[in-house]
């Protein structure tokens, strides 16, 4: 567990954040210049906050009042910098093993670094560099992992390859991971906790499913990025169709692809924009998932959209419909309707381990 409560002035900018990151991934989400990198630097010991305290597990990394301030090398953080910061005079292989060789073979394989080992950073493309930086941090076997937009420079297929690895990592090593990102599907897939910062302050903070499915979070995240996150269990596999059946308190959901073994827990993000509501159970359509739900909230946004809070079993879902639809359908809190979720709309990046 990582506890942070710090204040720091950086030029005109004032950082004042406090939050707790439990084991698992804590995503820090916020717009450009909101202070995400500054938080991560403070945890790494690369900048000294003016006041506050940073504790990992039971080790105090920083405490202004007690005058504790461990140097970076004694903090055992793995930091993937926004700019890769590879050592230009070393081969990729030597860069990777600089901090240790923890789990080397797997890291190299998953990140697709095998072919790059003999190369020098100057000859690498932007994405290749970031992958090496990620591998280097992972191989140092850190007690906290700090990732500052590690995947921003990667293409979608490579991202999709690396994300499951990060998810496995998160589950395998019980260490807190601070993950700066502005991609909600990354966040939803990986994060257990979500911290939204704005202008140097924490404006929302809590379990990721919670924060993402709050209708009032929609403007903070951007309309496109809102959506619920639910925990499901692998309940079956339809081999001929290549579909996986996931069970949760509100019913069953069929998704293309196969993830996990029977009984495995799977995290699922259901983007609000991908949920269609219907008053009656539709038939003869290509969408496979039709769930009976109850409307729990209707939140009118500034624009033409309405965020609709839904309860499916004990889980919360979120839908975003146009005001016109909401009016035509006469949506109201407490109403029983059907949520239609297209199996292919929940893309692979919305499914996490």
């Amino acid at each position, binding site marked *: 567990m990582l506890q942070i409560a710090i204040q720091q002035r950086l030029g005109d900018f004032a950082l004042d954040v406090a939050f707790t990151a439990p084991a698992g991934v804590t995503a820090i989400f916020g717009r450009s210049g909101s202070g995400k990198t500054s938080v991560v630097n403070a945890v*790494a*010991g*690369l900048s000294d906050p003016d006041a506050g305290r940073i504790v990992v597990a039971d080790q105090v990394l920083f405490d202004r009042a007690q005058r504790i301030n461990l*140097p*970076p*090398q004694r*903090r*055992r*953080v*793995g*930091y993937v*910098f926004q*700019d890769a*910061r590879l*050592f*230009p*005079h*070393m081969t990729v292989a030597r860069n990777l093993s*600089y*901090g*240790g060789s923890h789990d080397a073979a797997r890291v190299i394989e998953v990140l697709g670094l095998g072919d790059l080992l003999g190369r*020098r*950073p*100057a*000859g690498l493309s932007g994405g290749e560099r970031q992958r090496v930086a990620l591998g*280097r*941090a992972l191989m*140092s076997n850190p007690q906290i992992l700090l990732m500052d937009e590690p995947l921003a420079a990667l293409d979608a297929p490579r991202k999709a390859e690396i994300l499951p690895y990060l998810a496995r990592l998160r589950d395998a090593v019980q260490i807190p991971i601070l993950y700066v990102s502005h991609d909600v599907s990354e966040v939803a897939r990986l994060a257990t906790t979500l911290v939204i910062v704005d202008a140097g302050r924490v404006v929302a903070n809590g379990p990721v499913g919670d924060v993402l499915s709050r209708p009032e979070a929609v403007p903070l995240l951007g309309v496109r990025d809102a959506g619920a996150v639910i925990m499901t269990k692998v309940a079956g596999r339809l081999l001929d169709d290549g579909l996986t059946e996931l069970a949760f308190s509100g019913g069953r959901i069929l998704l293309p692809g196969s993830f996990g073994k029977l009984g495995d827990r799977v995290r699922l993000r259901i983007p609000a924009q991908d949920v269609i509501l219907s008053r009656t159970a539709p038939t003869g359509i290509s969408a496979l998932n039709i769930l009976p739900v109850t409307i729990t909230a209707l939140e009118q946004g500034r624009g033409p959209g309405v965020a609709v809070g839904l309860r499916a079993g004990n889980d919360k879902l979120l839908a975003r419909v146009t005001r016109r639809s909401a009016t035509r359908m006469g949506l109201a809190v407490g109403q029983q309707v059907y949520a239609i979720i297209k199996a292919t709309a929940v893309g692979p990046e919305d499914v996490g381990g």
Partner: protein
Amino acid sequence: MTDMFGPAEWAAIWLSLRVALVAMLGALPLAVWVAFVLARKVFPGRQLLNGLVHLPLVLPPVVTGYLLLVVFGRQGPVGALLYDIFGITLAFRWTGAALAAAIMAFPLMVRAIRLAIEAVDPGLEDAAATLGASKRRIFATVTLPLILPGVLAGAVLGFAKALGEFGATITFVAAIPGQTQTIPSAIYGLLQVPGGEPAVLRLVIVSVVLAMGALMISEWLARRVARRVGR
């Protein structure tokens, strides 16, 4: 070629090479350390150290030689100590010439190396620190390799200076053939006699060739290093 120089001249050439090389190699680690301290640390005596390092550059070499005599001479505090404890005498020995050359070359080496250190991206050292590397290891594996071109430049500058050093050397250890008579003191002597010009010219050419050789080797090394660093 061998005919060109008398035995005394050959002796001076070899001695010069040895003195310059030893002076440069001996001073280099200290120069790197001082450069690092000056570039990266903030401490009370910083400006003083900086000034001290530059002193041999500013003072007339004769004065430096005289100060060397005062400090490292048989009766000087350091000289006496060295003699009593280790039985080392610098007086009229090539080691003394090397010391004088090293001290004269020192400010040049420190400056070159310090500039290189200041050009290293501290972000890389930060990255190494988060990977758990100790300060010493960061220095050895990140900073040092990155400043190698600067260290090389400093080394060559130092070597060239040591090769040309004259005033401080002759004042401190005189010009004893085979012991402390380096090329510059041989040239000086020859210049003082009417008709010494041809011999002077020969020795000047030797100096130039030696220095050019050192320069070329260092350029070549620097290019290799630069390629390694991917610049």
